[in-house]
């Protein structure tokens, strides 16, 4: 009796906690509403399954608890019931998987007009690079990294000369323009994680990974590292500022290009 | 991972074939069990030790297939500098073939109850296997002297790793062979002897097969582009 009651309380308590919990996702600031919607669908289906299972179990524990005269029913299997349950489960799974795969195909298909932005991770800070007037990022190599070339850009690549290098400052992005984020690391695994954008991807030394999103809300968002990268992992913070086009251009005009930076450093 | 998955699929089909024959569809709660079924179990068709070796070989095979997978995936990357494998490996391969043949001979002799034949076979197999290991060590030395150390290039790292893993398996086999030899010296019955010798022979054939595959991989894989492309394509 008590056991059944506690089981019911666990089920009800979980649902109540879900509704009353002050801990919920951050307000979204990107185009990935679909991810949130898929998550909600999953919550409904799994929540219903959880309550049904624990509720049924509690009822069984109550109804078929051992009492004098209680005997169990001998029934090795019931094919029809098992088949019916399999089909129901498969439908539930499909209802979660189908929207999931649909959204994933959007997630991996970068729009053609997306602007490339590079984020470089190292222990334990972030740097950024924006393409210059030519709209292209120049090539880079870890082997070229030095005190005067912290991101290892190729000095012989003309496409890289006008790239805007942002070191130890915030990344600014214009609102409503799709961004393809190219991720590079020069030492260990990192992961550029802004909860409000919903999308993220690991950065792997030795290769370039990517994801894309469109910022849909102006504001300043905190970026964290989401892949263990050594003892400084929790301190690896950054900031992304999403601005209107005009504000963004004003900010951009104040930034240095790779060529300017190299010239300054050489002059020193 | 394609090589591993193919090997794995092979193992799975053996397991599936075996399971299907075990009557997984029977309803065990029904009482009317045929008497034959009672007799059938508890009398396995294969000696226990052989079954044990079979399971071990499956595991060892999977281990090698994983290394091959890693090798092929790594090979496809930019900084890979293939080197010609030492000529000595051809001679070593020949020695291992002879070793395997000698043990086969020993196992045939054991089946016929021919004690001196077993002794000759074991001795020849053991000595040639040792010779193979010495040859491998010499190949290492040749490479090291020529300046190709494990850290030089991934190709070298894999060469040392693969030959070392295979060599350790040969060493393990020699321990088992030594045990069979001791039994022979101690005058064990032919029945016991046969079991041990047959296991050694099976294991030696596995060693040979594994070596030939690995050698082919080391010597030829880089030139077979479709193989490399197939194996490494999706898993960069």
């Amino acid at each position, binding site marked *: 009796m008590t056991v059944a009651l506690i*089981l019911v309380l666990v089920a009800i308590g979980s649902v109540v906690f879900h509704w009353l919990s002050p801990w919920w996702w951050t307000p979204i600031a990107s185009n990935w509403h679909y*991810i949130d919607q898929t998550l909600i669908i999953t919550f409904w289906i799994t929540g219903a399954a959880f309550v049904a*299972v624990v509720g*049924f179990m509690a009822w069984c*524990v109550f109804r078929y608890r051992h009492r004098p005269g209680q005997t169990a029913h001998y029934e090795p299997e019931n094919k029809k019931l098992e088949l019916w349950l399999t089909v129901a489960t498969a439908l539930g799974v499909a209802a979660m998987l189908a929207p999931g795969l649909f959204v994933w195909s959007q997630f991996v298909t970068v729009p053609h007009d997306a602007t490339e932005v590079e984020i470089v991770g190292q222990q334990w800070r972030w740097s950024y690079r924006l393409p210059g007037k030519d709209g292209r990022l120049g090539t880079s190599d870890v082997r070229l990294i030095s005190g005067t070339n912290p991101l290892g850009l190729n000095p012989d690549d003309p496409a890289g000369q006008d790239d805007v290098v942002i070191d130890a400052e915030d990344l600014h992005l214009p609102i409503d323009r799709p961004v393809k984020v190219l991720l590079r690391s020069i030492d260990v695994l990192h992961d550029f994680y802004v909860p409000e954008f919903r999308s993220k991807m690991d950065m792997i030394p030795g290769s370039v990974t990517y994801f894309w999103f469109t910022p849909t809300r102006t504001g300043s968002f905190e970026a964290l590292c989401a892949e263990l990268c050594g003892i400084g992992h929790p301190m690896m913070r950054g900031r992304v500022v999403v601005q209107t086009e005009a504000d963004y251009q004003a900010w951009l005009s104040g930034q240095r290009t790779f060529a300017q930076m190299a010239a300054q450093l050489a002059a020193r | 991972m394609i090589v591993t998955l193919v090997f794995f699929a092979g193992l799975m089909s053996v397991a599936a074939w075996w399971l299907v024959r075990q*009557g997984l569809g029977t309803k065990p709660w029904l009482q009317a069990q045929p008497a034959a079924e009672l007799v059938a179990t508890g009398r396995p068709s294969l000696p226990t030790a052989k079954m044990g070796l079979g399971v071990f070989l499956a595991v060892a095979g999977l281990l090698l297939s994983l290394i091959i997978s890693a090798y092929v995936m790594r090979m496809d990357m930019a900084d890979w500098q293939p080197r010609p494998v030492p000529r000595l490996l051809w001679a070593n391969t020949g020695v291992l073939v002879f070793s395997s043949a000698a043990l086969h001979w020993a196992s045939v002799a054991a089946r016929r109850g021919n004690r001196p034949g077993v002794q000759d076979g074991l001795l020849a197999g053991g000595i040639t296997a040792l010779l193979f290991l010495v040859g491998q060590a010499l190949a290492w030395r040749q490479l090291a002297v020529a300046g190709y150390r494990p850290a030089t290039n991934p190709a070298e790292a894999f060469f040392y790793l693969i030959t070392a893993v295979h060599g350790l398996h040969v060493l393990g086999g020699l321990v088992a062979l030594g045990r069979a030899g001791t039994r022979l010296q101690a005058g064990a019955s032919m029945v016991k002897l046969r079991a041990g010798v047959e296991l050694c022979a099976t294991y030696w054939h596995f060693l040979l097969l594994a070596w030939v595959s690995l050698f082919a991989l080391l010597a030829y894989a880089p030139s077979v582009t479709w193989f490399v492309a197939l194996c490494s394509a999706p898993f960069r």
Partner: protein
Amino acid sequence: MGDVADAAGAAIPHPDSEEDDLYHPHSWLTKYVFSQDAKVIGVQYSLTAISIGMVALVLSWLMRLQLGFPGTFDFIDPPAYYQFITMHGMIMVVYLLTALFLGGFGNYLIPLMLGARDMVFPYVNMLSYWIYLLAVLVLVASFFAPGGPTGAGWTLYPPQAVLSGTPGQEWGIVLMLVSLALFIIGFTMGGLNYVVTVLQARTRGMTLMRMPLTIWGIFTATVMALLAFPALLVGAVMMLLDRLLGTSFFMPSLVEMGQQLRYGGGSPILFQHLFWFFGHPEVYIVALPAFGIVSDLIATHARRNIFGYRMMVWAIVAIGALSFVVWAHHMYVSGMHPYFGFFFATTTLIIAIPTALKLYNWLLTLWRGDIHLTVPMLFALGFIVTFVNGGLTGLFLGNVVVDVPLSDTMFVVAHFHMVMGVAPVMVIFGGLYHWYPKVTGRLLNETLGRIHFWVTFLGAYLIFFPMHYLGLLGVPRRYHDLGQTAFVPDSAHTLNAFISVVALTVGVAQLIFLFNLFWSLRHGRNAGGNPWNATTLEWQTPETPPGHGNWGAAQPVVYRWAYDYSVPGAERDFIPQNDPTAVGMTR
């Protein structure tokens, strides 16, 4: 044992190794220490696993202290914290759960439940335990090595694991990799035994479909472990070479703290593939024995045949096979080829179907049963609740696009602790309460058992259920100190403190269990041979605890399946497997 006919006209038959090879101990040392008896080895495995598990439990208290009350405890600095989480994770997954289910329960139960006298290769079995112990000692040694144990996280991802920004770079990582290699070698020796014993040493009448589900679970999990651990071995050896010889299997060219290193061209993703090719099956290596054991606990204590036995067996086999093609769902945001997401999300969600089916059959076994709420039954119920909860959150993380925001957050931590931490541990406790009387001849104290259950079950649920919501909020995992983060409200810190207090309470409750374990050895109620009125063979031994060789003069003969509970027309509400009475269904 039949001779294999061959073309050469076999004159020499194969030896009949089973009867005459049964090993006999001659001294106290060979009977209890260097024993080749699977029962003793099983107990040795269990005690070692529980001991090292206690170390991991203490580590979890320390990390909870830090998370709940950051800045209060000076000695938990970032290096120490990362060392704690790494060792906690690795010990719990490999050295406790795997070793206890397969080495402990497997060794004790396989021969007994199959009516065999012992494992088929007893000497190798003994070596397996000693190598396992050596692996544990090497692991423990890393606590005392210069620089301490590795702090790379239990996934040991390179390049971070071998670089200086990670604690334990000098010795810790080396000892960890060596210990893992030893564990795998030792496990392979044991695993060969478990598999071949199931294949070869079943007693007369014990067809595969008459085996208890415990054996099906352990057997399938062992096969999987034999096939999965080599991947970890390959990864460990390669990383060891990267660390010691300067090879570049997993190490790309990189700059560490402004210094160009000599590495070049290696692939960190390759390690992740190898690791998870082992790591995902590992989840089921822990889960399948738990599934099997819980099936038997439920059937026995609900006095009802397990519902849908055939479906249960098929599901175990299907889960075992499928679990090898889902590994990359741990790598959705690792930067692997994005199109893999489609394949691995589909396989991952498909595996939910046989798993759900098993769950339904446990519920349907309770349904119309005669439920005795004994301590093992309580733990089985606790398992169902936590497993359902953890399994359902798995559907979030397996569905590739939902995983993107949730990966690497506390949601993941909550999920896997619920599904492969709490749930299997519930089964381990249930199993220990259930089989302790067979091992010692005495029952564990019931009152202590109930207190232990309620604190552990409700406490664990209170720890991990709210933790999901921290993850949903976006709190990342593996943070020594969350500090001031814009999107994290103060209430989240309060929740963290609450979780820590509950975690310490649950931790203390485990001491009740340990006390019970030792106290009942002397003072427990005498159990007799079959205190639960169970059908399976281990309860039908002539002596309790079972003597050497298990069965006295003659091995039992099996006449029925393992689940003849409450058969209509039978005298009692159970019929042992070796009872030839012709009661039961004929059609």
